[in-house]
């Protein structure tokens, strides 16, 4: 048997040569390396921006933080704003969580093919609404039309519109992960559908629902526009726990201070920013970690 001859090889290609690049490979490797360098640089830039922003807040805000700042009302501190934000966001959560969970239940348990798309669409649109528009809407509905005044709960209502799609989406994800055999077991025992949902499926999805809610709380705590239009006149010199009144809060205070262009106010604004960022990042990271853990438990 004679050695087969390679009739069809392009003349410049000799497979027995060392395994380094032939032809245009060096240039192609160069291009690939440049692109990879760009990708790495982009990632580094993003992290750098994060560091610069958060670092700036920490550097300027740390000066303002002390015990008085966090516990006393104006002029020494911003405690009413912190408490006020908690009140407003708390009421918003009470409004938004049930609606969001029910909508998620609808999509996951009850919606047929014809109703899933429209409801999903409604959620998507609601998710993408600019918060200023939501603010204007609630203003038009509750203040302008009826000659009403600003109040904490009205801001809560606007925030809840922003929170509902977030809670619904997160709840949907977790409901999807509830293993099929749990639903089947409930049905096989002759348990009514509604009992199965309320006593088996929802509790199984509860950790995920909580984290979705926490994430939306983190988002709502930082939202300024709705509160700017609906609960911004309260000064921070007194605590106000009644949501029917105007309630002082954090993001609007920061905004007002930044618009005043008074350098003395800036320190207070930095301090508020630091507290706000700390709360939000903690909520965000913590709840995401919880979500991953509960997801892993359920898919085991």
């Amino acid at each position, binding site marked *: 048997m004679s050695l087969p001859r390679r009739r069809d090889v392009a003349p410049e290609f000799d497979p027995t040569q060392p395994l380094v690049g032939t032809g245009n490979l060096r240039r192609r490797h160069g291009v690939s390396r440049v692109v990879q360098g760009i990708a790495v640089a982009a990632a580094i830039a993003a992290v750098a921006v994060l560091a610069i922003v958060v670092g700036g807040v920490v550097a300027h805000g740390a000066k303002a933080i002390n015990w008085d700042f966090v516990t006393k009302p104006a002029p020494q501190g911003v405690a009413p704003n912190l408490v006020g934000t908690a009140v407003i966001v708390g009421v918003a959560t009470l409004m938004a969580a049930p609606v969001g969970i029910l909508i998620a239940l609808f999509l996951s348990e009850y919606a047929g093919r014809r109703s899933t798309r429209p409801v999903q669409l409604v959620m998507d649109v609601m998710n*993408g609404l600019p918060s200023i528009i939501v603010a204007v809407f609630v203003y038009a509905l509750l203040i302008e039309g009826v000659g009403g005044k600003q109040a904490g709960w009205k801001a809560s209502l606007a925030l809840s519109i922003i929170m509902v799609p977030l809670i619904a989406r997160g709840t949907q994800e977790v409901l999807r992960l509830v293993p099929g055999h749990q639903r089947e077991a409930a049905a096989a025992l002759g348990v009514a559908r509604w009992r199965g949902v309320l006593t088996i499926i929802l509790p199984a999805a509860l950790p995920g629902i909580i984290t979705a809610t926490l994430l939306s709380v983190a988002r709502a705590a930082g939202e300024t526009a709705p509160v700017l239009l609906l609960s911004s006149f309260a000064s921070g010199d007194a605590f106000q726990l009644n949501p029917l009144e105007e309630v002082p809060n954090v993001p609007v205070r920061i905004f007002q201070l930044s618009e005043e262009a008074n350098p003395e106010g800036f320190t207070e604004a930095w301090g508020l920013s630091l507290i706000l960022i700390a709360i939000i990042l903690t909520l965000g990271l913590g709840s995401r970690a919880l979500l991953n853990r509960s997801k892993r438990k359920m898919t085991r």
Partner: protein
Amino acid sequence: MSATPPAGSASLKLARSNRQSDSRKRADRVGDLSLRLICMAAALLAAIVLVLIAKEVVEGAHPSIARYGLSFITNHEWAPPLEKFGGEGLILGTLITSAMALLIGAPVAISIGIFLALLAPVSVRNVISPLVEMLAAIPSVILGFWGLLILGPVLVSTVEPFLHDTLGFIPLFGAPQTTGASIFNAGLILTIMVIPIIASVSRDLFMAVPPELQDGAAALGSTRWEVIRGVVLPSTLSGMMAACLLGLGRALGEAIAVAQVVGGGTESHLSLFRNGGTIASLIALQFPSAVSALHTSSLYYLAAILLVIGVTSNLLASWVGYRFGSAGGAMR
């Protein structure tokens, strides 16, 4: 439901459990129906809210629409004391800042997505990914405050003069102002907001490209970039489009941060370095203290325009994601 009862009382027990199961079944049916109705009501409530939003905004805008009609879009004077309201400056500002955010942000974000999904080892990805997402979690009021006090001065002292000196012949790069509050600043802040959104979605899209496809390309003697360019990017094009539309929606709707850094101007101009305004930021700045009914109504008019643009881009994003598959899953 019950185990086999002892022989003697069998019929008695059976009769009793039948009665119980009858009332149980009725309760079950009521319960099932109630829960289903409540869930449907919640979904319906959301839809009604959306309709109400549209209604209120359009109603509020009605006087201004009646007064100006479509010329509102091309009138460039916005002067509340003079009762003159034209939206061109704001619309222009909105378009320029959003375009800037996408033109700079999308390539950077996609590069980050490539890095996270295709180049970085898993340990690095698990650290950098959350950091990038953290960028999205920063509240806009804080980012705007930072942009005003820290970014602004830097821009005015270095970047803007440099760009003006080298590219000043283009009207876009006109003379900088002293304050650091400018369209340019607003555009950069929006870029920072848009990048994590597009980056996260891109990363998810790239990670979903089947490894067999990438193996097939690699086995043909291709460099890493050639595999990405030839296989990964083409198969995720529609998803990336949807991601960019999502980012666009975010940029269009951002009111507070832009209000803090854009300078509050309302003139219609094309210079990046002067102050200006966007629709959302103007509403945030002037709505609480509008001076007249026409003023308020014109602000509603602007809100209506914003609503239309915003919802359209959102719907486009959903449609692209729905139509072309994988993006929808990644975005949810």
